[in-house]
């Protein structure tokens, strides 16, 4: 359901940006996303960790002073130690970036869910943060970093968190290709009737896709 919504949102962004892309005033890229994640979670007095590969996609549209991004990832975690981290996680988000690429603010909306021993929990998040994109000269490489605070907007298991992501992106000038490797770390602390449930999801990420122009 969430995936379909984000796909529709992506299509809407693409259509909206098409004239600007044609004029080369907006960079548009579509990536497949993979995060080789490690999930650490505590539940009911026990803590455990698990590994899983989150897969998804992202659509990024960036103009000189603003940008829009849509992202969705999800995947299963298998236990490495204990059972607290076992389950599946899904995240979807739409962010609006304001300001120049070198440094701008991020305001967005996200949905997060996990399915574990307690069943499925979903909640909404308000996302606020900052991001930077710094080209490394004319090499085609670009350093990217963003840090966000995700504030719960309520739901079945409202929990706030922090997300930090770094990337080294490469876009060759002669090919419509875009590749990025990076590291993503998120830390959430969900409130439940049984108490606070902290959860970290960290891991290297890779994004490969196409870009226009």
């Amino acid at each position, binding site marked *: 359901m969430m995936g379909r919504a984000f796909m529709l949102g992506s299509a809407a962004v693409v259509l909206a940006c098409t004239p600007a892309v044609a004029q080369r005033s907006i960079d548009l890229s579509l990536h497949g996303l993979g995060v080789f994640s490690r999930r650490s979670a*505590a539940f009911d007095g026990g803590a455990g960790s698990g590994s899983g590969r989150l897969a998804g996609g992202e659509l990024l549209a960036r103009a000189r002073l603003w940008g829009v991004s849509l992202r969705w990832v999800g995947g299963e975690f298998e236990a490495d130690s204990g059972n607290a981290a076992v389950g599946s996680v899904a995240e979807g988000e739409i962010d609006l970036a304001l300001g120049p690429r070198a440094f701008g603010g991020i305001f967005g909306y996200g949905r997060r869910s996990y399915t574990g021993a307690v069943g499925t929990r979903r909640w909404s998040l308000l996302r606020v943060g900052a991001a930077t994109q710094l080209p*490394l000269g004319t090499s085609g490489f670009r*350093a990217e970093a963003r840090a966000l605070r995700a504030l719960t907007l309520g739901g079945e298991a409202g929990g706030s968190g922090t997300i*930090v992501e770094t990337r080294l992106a490469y876009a060759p000038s002669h090919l419509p290709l875009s590749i990025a*490797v990076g590291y993503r*770390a*998120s830390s959430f602390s969900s409130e439940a009737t049984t108490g606070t449930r902290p959860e970290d999801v960290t891991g290297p990420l890779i994004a490969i896709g196409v870009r226009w122009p």
Partner: protein
Amino acid sequence: MRKLMNRVAIATLVLAALLPVASSAQTPMDELLRRAREALNNLEYERADSIARSLVTATGPGTRAYRTTGLQILAAALYPDEQWAQKPDSARKYLTQLVRLSPDVSMPDGVTWPGLDSLLEDARRRTFAVRLDAAGQDTILGVDGSVRVRVVATRPARFRLVAEPIDLAGTVVHLDSASGRVEMELAIPVFREDVRLLESGRYRLRVIADDPVSDLRTEDLMIATVVAPQLRRVSIPVVLDSTQLLPERSAPRRWRNGAIGMGLGFVTVLAGSVVGSSNELSGLGGDGRAYWMAGALATGAVLGALLDSGASLPENAEYNRGLHRGFAESVRDAQEENRRLRDTYRATVRYEEAGK
């Protein structure tokens, strides 16, 4: 009747000899011609012979025409139709001189008779002579231009035309050559392939004729006064002054970019160690892969920074293109101006007899 015709012809001959100096006053040479004519008209062959000899030995400007006419009168006086007055050996000697002076000469109608014509042809056949035929003044137009002078010989020959400086220091200049016919035209250029051949000054123009059959050589001379001003040229720029060019790429900022890469690694370490480390989960340990990724990202970013070749500067590139266009235009203008100067170049050659 025949004698009457002889007289008319000789009068015509004398008149023709006077033509080059017709506009000037009567000279002692004209007086001699007049007296020779009278003697020939009165059948006083010995007197005509004597007067004509003084014409033949005369020197000075315009004497070639007098000498030619004198030799014609002399030959006619020495070999008239009247058998008692014929002196064929002497006539042949002067006809040989006449042919040397003017290889394509013929005896005027009326004066001559078949016997004299045969004697002239015999002298021409036995004599190898060449004449350089030019008079007055010629103008050479353009650097590639030239004037042509006529050369005539008694038989087909190889001709070479050279100029020997008289008042100037310098060596003999080869001007032109041709072969194969009795009569040809040879060129006098001032430049050859943009190399100057003749400076302003007086030259001895020498035509040398070689008979390829008999290996005989003969020549003729004229004096030529050349007025050949210096050819003006506009200097053509060779290369564009590179100091005027602006850099078309900015200098690579490798230190800055390297610092960004290091910063990316640092933030990645922070992400792994700070974000993923709440109290309840501290017992599980952090994600050590963050350090590896931090190292990889920093290394990749630094390598990427080293690949930076600087940003292109389109304004400077356009400015440089304008400079190149301007340079090409200035080269074209200079070449065009030089072409015009070459085409409008003028030199003159004035000829004088050198005697023989």
